Structures are given as structure tokens and as C-alpha cells.
């Protein structure tokens, strides 16, 4: 779908309802359970969201109340989040590895009313700090394993009982849910996303429906996705990247989200799904490359010979491809041959054959990894952004993958470099309001790099050392009307080098 601007007028639950009207029987979610992939259609997805939403309402939740989610990636997590959004409540993700004391702090800070946990492990952590969080009305759990001894306590509720409560409430007043969904506005706050907290306690960024949907719409303007595309959800939900995909991209494009059986099986489940795009932190790509190297090393001599010959050709060809230059005919032929006899089968073994684009973000990835992946035919691209800009602001374009840069701004994103060298970005995705405090608000709707908020020096030096400079192409004065340090849209671009440019020079932290 080329023009999906109208989606920006929806809230997330409204967009889900629109999806149901468009393609009720198409698969929206898929979860591997007991060794089998079970599908939820968009219609079922919405039904579960309704059950959960009405159930949460029956628990006494209403507009502005907050729900914390501490869970591995399972469909129920989306039901709880979007069910909450539908009744005007606000979701918040907490990392599964968070320790009890910190969970208590976050729950106090975000004024959480209900906590959703996936299993006993998370429930136990919440239970440990129960006396510090009196405002938590209920703890919802999904996996009842080990929960037998807790059932006498009505602080806990099984999500299946919540569904039943929701159904009962819906039967009593069948029009209520739809009217609640109608009340949602794109500019309402729907999720509190914790910032990384490397410069202090994490802050809860108040994300709106529009932030996420705009993200989904903009990213697909650069890299289109089909309704039939598959995505595997294995990043932590508390991270903006996963929310961006499950709230924004999936809703805006209608792709299918696949949930692995468990955290440990994510990579083998990825193989079974064969996603069309994936999103990961650098360690995932480093892990896959190590696995390839290991397997090649264990292979017999002929395989090694072929691999070593063609990987060199692949890397040379990748150099041309990444910069968009045209290859000499002979190299093109050899690269094609290598792809057919080595790299296609190899990539197929990894489950990445259908992959059109792989994104890396969250930290810096070595340039040789970009070249390696491009050489074996995986289109790996860097993205860059912050929580406050709903994940992504800058992205490599196909045919312009310069590993030392983070790509160009997404459509509708402006960028500006502050006097002290910090990258400032502005777009409709920017949300610089934080829960409980307005002190951090950025001027003019700009959002800074990860080391913003008056804390340029404390504890963030590791990141700031990787400074990348960029300058504006063409005649800046002419195009920008005398604002040399300011670029918009596709016109500015990051390049490596020292900070030697004159007044066009601006710099960025990765």
C-alpha cells in the first residue's frame, strides 16, 4: 500500500479494528507452542484484545491507569497492552531481567495499577516487593505452572480468568467496548517506554498512538513491506525497537508477527519462519556470523575452498553494491555464481533466504560485518535513533550502505547539530515528555542523542567516543536559506572523518 497517510488518524486499537475490517481472516500473530505454530487472525486478535480490555476494565482500570508488562514475547503481551489502550489505559514494559528492587522503583515511579507477568519467575519478583507497591491492584499471569500455591491469594489472576471476566462484561454491555475504542485519540499517551537509564534512573517516555503509527508509516515509505511478510519477535518488549515493530510497523502494514517457543529457541524458530525483515542488536548478527564461520571451519576441504574463494569475490562485489556503483561484468558473473552455489544454500540454512532487509541498531556494529552480510546476500542496514523518537530516525538506504555512517533521516525527520556536537532530531515521532516530570522537555520539539538531558559527560563517554561527522551535500546556503547547520530529509548524510569541516560540519554520536 503506497498511501497510508490516513492511518495516522487512528489510535492503535482503532487501527487494529480497521485491519479486522480490511482482512479479518489473514494471520496477524503466530505463536509456537507444543511444537506447533498456532495462528491468530486479525479478527481473533481483536477479540482477545476486547476480552482483555473489558477484563481490565472489570478490574477497575480506566483512562490514564497504567499496566506494567514483565514478560517474554508472547501474544498475550500484546493483548494486555492493546486491550489496555482500548480502554484508555497506558502500558509500560519492564525488562525481564530487572531485579525486584528495581521493579519496585519503576512500579512506584510509573504509578502502576496492574502488572502482567508471563510466569512464576516474574510473579515471584513482584511478590518480593509487594509491601512497597500498595497501588498495584492485581498481578495477571499467563503460565500457571508453579502458581498453584498462589491461587488462594486474590492479588493474582490468571489471564484466562481475565478473558472470562471480559467476556461477561462484554455480554452485559455489547456496545461499550466499541465506544471506548472510538474515544481513543491519536495524540493520547498509550505507552510509557523506559529510557536506557545509563545517565541516571530510567525515565518513562510518554509515547502516543501517533508516535508509533507514524513510525510504522514512515519506515515503510523507505522500505516497503507486504501484508504477507513475516516478522519474528524476539527482542525484549520493553525496548522501543520491539514496540515500534509490534505497535507501529505491524499495524501499519499488516505483516504477521511470529512469537518463538521460548527465548532459547528463537534462532531455530527464525529458521522455520523465514522472516522477510528482521531487526536486531549487533550481538545477534555477530552470533550468526560466528556460527557460519564455525560451521565452515568444521566442513570438509572442498566446501572450505569454495567458500573462501567466493567470499572474497562476494566482499569485493559488496563494495560496489553498497555504494550503488555498477560492477565490472566479470565480477558480476562471479558474484552471481557464488550466490547460486554457495551463498543461497548457506543463507537458506540460516532461515534468511526470504529476508529482504535486516536492520541493526542499539549499538555500533563493526564495518566488516556489514560487508560480510552484504557479501553473502543479506541486506544488513544500520538504523539510528532514540527512545524519544520512537526508535528510528536515520536509516541506510538500499544501495547506499556506508558502514561508517548511520544513513539518512527518515522522511519527515529534520536533523540539527547542537553547538556541542550533539545530534538533535525532530519529527512527528518525537516525544520528549516524561512521566512525572516536565523538566527534561527539549526546546522546539527536538530530541537529542542518547546522551541528552544535561548529561553530556557523565557515564556516556564510551558512546560519545564514536563520533561520526556528516556534512550537507550541495550548496547548503542556497537550499537551506542561510541556515548552514541545518538539514532536512534526504539531503544530509553521515560520513566518517575528523571534525574538520567548516561551518557545514556537524557531528553525531552513534
Amino acid at each position: 500500500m503506497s498511501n497510508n497517510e490516513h492511518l495516522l488518524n487512528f489510535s492503535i486499537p482503532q487501527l487494529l479494528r480497521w485491519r479486522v475490517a480490511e482482512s479479518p481472516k489473514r494471520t496477524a500473530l503466530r505463536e509456537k507452542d507444543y511444537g506447533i505454530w498456532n495462528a491468530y487472525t486479525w479478527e481473533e486478535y481483536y477479540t482477545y484484545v476486547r476480552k482483555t480490555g473489558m477484563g481490565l476494565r472489570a478490574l477497575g482500570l480506566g483512562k490514564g491507569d497504567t499496566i506494567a508488562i514483565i514478560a517474554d514475547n508472547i501474544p498475550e503481551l500484546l493483548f494486555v497492552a492493546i486491550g489496555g489502550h482500548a480502554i484508555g489505559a497506558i502500558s509500560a514494559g519492564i525488562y525481564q531481567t530487572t531485579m525486584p528492587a528495581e521493579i519496585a522503583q519503576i512500579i512506584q515511579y510509573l504509578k502502576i495499577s496492574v502488572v502482567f507477568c508471563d510466569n512464576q519467575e516474574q510473579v515471584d519478583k513482584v511478590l518480593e516487593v509487594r509491601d512497597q507497591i500498595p497501588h498495584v491492584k492485581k498481578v495477571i499471569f499467563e503460565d500457571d505452572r508453579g502458581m498453584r500455591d498462589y491461587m488462594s491469594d486474590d492479588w493474582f489472576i490468571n489471564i484466562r480468568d481475565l478473558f472470562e471476566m471480559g467476556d461477561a462484561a462484554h455480554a452485559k454491555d455489547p456496545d461499550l467496548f466499541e465506544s471506548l475504542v472510538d474515544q481513543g485519540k491519536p495524540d493520547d499517551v498509550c505507552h510509557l517506554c523506559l529510557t536506557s537509564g545509563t545517565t541516571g534512573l530510567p525515565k518513562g517516555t510518554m509515547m502516543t498512538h501517533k508516535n508509533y503509527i507514524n513510525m510504522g508509516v514512515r519506515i515503510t515509505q523507505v522500505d516497503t513491506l507486504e501484508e504477507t511478510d513475516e516478522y519474528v519477535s524476539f527482542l525484549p518488549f520493553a525496548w522501543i525497537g520491539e514496540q515500534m515493530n509490534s505497535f507501529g510497523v505491524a499495524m501499519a502494514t499488516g505483516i504477521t508477527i511470529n512469537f518463538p517457543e521460548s527465548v532459547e529457541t528463537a534462532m531455530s524458530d527464525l529458521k522455520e519462519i523465514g522472516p522477510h525483515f528482521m531487526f536486531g542488536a549487533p550481538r545477534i548478527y555477530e552470533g550468526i556470523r560466528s556460527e557460519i564461520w564455525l560451521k565452515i571451519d568444521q566442513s570438509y576441504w572442498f566446501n572450505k575452498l569454495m567458500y573462501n574463494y567466493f567470499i572474497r569475490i562476494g566482499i569485493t562485489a559488496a563494495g560496489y553494491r553498497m555504494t550503488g556503483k555498477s560492477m565490472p561484468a566479470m565480477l558480476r558473473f562471479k558474484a552471481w555464481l557464488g550466490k547460486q552455489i554457495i551463498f543461497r544454500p548457506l543463507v537458506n540454512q540460516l532461515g534468511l533466504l526470504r529476508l529482504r532487509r535486516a536492520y541493526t541498531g542499539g549499538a555500533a556494529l563493526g564495518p566488516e560485518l556489514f560487508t560480510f552480510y552484504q557479501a553473502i546476500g543479506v541486506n544488513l542496514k544500520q538504523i539510528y535513533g532514540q527512545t524519544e523518537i520512537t526508535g528510528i530516525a536515520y536509516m541506510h538506504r538500499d544501495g547506499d550502505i556506508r558502514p561508517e555512517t548511520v544513513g539518512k533521516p527518515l522522511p519527515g525527520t529534520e536533523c540539527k547539530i547542537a553547538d556541542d556536537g550533539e545530534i538533535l532530531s525532530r519529527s512527528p515521532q518525537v516525544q520528549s515528555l516524561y512521566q512525572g516530570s516536565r523538566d527534561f522537555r527539549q526546546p522546539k520539539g527536538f530530541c537529542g542523542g542518547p546522551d541528552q538531558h544535561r548529561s553530556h559527560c557523565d557515564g556516556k563517554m564510551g558512546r560519545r567516543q564514536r563520533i561520526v561527522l556528516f556534512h550537507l551535500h550541495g550548496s547548503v546556503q542556497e537550499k537551506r536559506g542561510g541556515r548552514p547547520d541545518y538539514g532536512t530529509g534526504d539531503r544530509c548524510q553521515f560520513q566518517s572523518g575528523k571534525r574538520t569541516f567548516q561551518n557545514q560540519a556537524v557531528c553525531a554520536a552513534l
Partner: protein
Amino acid sequence: MAHLRVSDVTLSFGGLKALSHVDMAIEPGLITSIIGPNGAGKTSMLNCISGFYHPTKGEILYKDKDLSHASPHQVSTMGIARAFQNLELFSGLSVLDNLLLARHQNLTYSFLQAAIFVGKASRIEAENRAAVEDVIDFMELEPVRKHTVGSLSYGFQKKVEVARALTMDPEILLLDEPMAGMNIQEKEDIVRFVMDIQKERNITVVLVEHDLGVVMDISDRIYVLDFGEVIGSGTPEEVANNPKVIEAYIGEE
């Protein structure tokens, strides 16, 4: 009412008495542990219950049926499954195949039905796979489902061994030193599974174990064997304060 009653069981190998006049009552829904020094007759006791040995004297009653002369396969069809101390798995087969094999008793279709593989045969296979997947989920074996058992770590193999016994849907599970040779973390893992087996699946557990700390923590009843005789029994506290038991473990003062 005891689930399984062992009365006056004596097992002799020639002149050696592996067990003499042993009485035990395994209550339903509890974890009963059998402890004792090396050579005390713990594994012999399990072997008698599971039908590998037949007691020279005495009887083993399970639901009013005498097991003392039953063969292992008869015992297993009656709902008593055993996880072995030395792993008894097919190391060349995958975890999934090992577990499916353990359900061979449930494969009730005929050769002809299997050849055609529609209707009954495929339905039964699907049911068995579902039962196996339930155990895989319970024992958290998803990451190794399709790996051959031989390629797994010892700790994982032990888990597969317990899973194999669970796959048979037993009422009583005999665990022969499930924690032997494991590090602390793996032990804690198995302890959690043993407790979940009792609580979540309502299976009566009979545990033979060397690690006294674990036994004292999780058992409801303990029997202490020494030289083939029961020298003490009762709750963990009772056993820990029993002078005979202290003597057998620590020696005379």
C-alpha cells in the same frame, strides 16, 4: 491408604542379603525418599518395585495387585515408571524420538492401519505427539527437541531420562539418583522439576538420592536403608534425629 506397600521383602543373591525384611509404605501424592550409604540396597529396592528383580520373600502390593513376580513391562503398564541412574536412552535418536518411543504402549493401531496411516493410526500418532510435547514443555526441552541425545550435555540427558519416564503418564515415578554427577545449578533445576512433578502433575515420587541436603529439603517421607535393612523412617526431622541413622552416616561416637 498406601499407594504401594512393600511388606517384609527380602532379596538374596546366594548368601548375600541385599534386602532383608524391608517394609515400606508409599503414600499417594507425596515425595518419598530412600537414602542410605553405598551398597545399602536402595537401587535393589527400586529394582524389586519395577520388576527387574523378584524378591526372594515378601510381597509388593500396588492397588491390591502383587508386583513381586511381575515383569518390568507389566509394572510399567500399571502406571509405575522409572528414570534410571545410568541413562537408558537411545543416544543416536533425537529427544523427540526417544520420548515417542516411551509411549509405544499407547500405539494400539494394527500393522495394516499403520501402513495406510489414515484414521486411527494418524490420530493416535497425533495424540502421542501431543502428550510428548506436553512433557517437553514441562521439562523445558524445547531447545533440544530435535537434537540427538548423544550430542547433549549430561545434565540435559538426565532431564531427558526423567522426561522419558514422565511420558508414560505414570502414577508413581521412581527416580534413581537424578542428581548424581550434576553441579549445584543443575541440581537446583532438577529439584524444581521434581517438586513440580509432584505438585503440578500429581505424581507420586519415589526418590533415591545421595545428596542429603536435597532429600531433607523436598521429601515428605524418608526411609533409611543400611545393609539391606530399614534403620529409620519418617519425616525429615524424625530421620535427622534418629540415633541409628546418625550412626550409619557419621559413625559411632
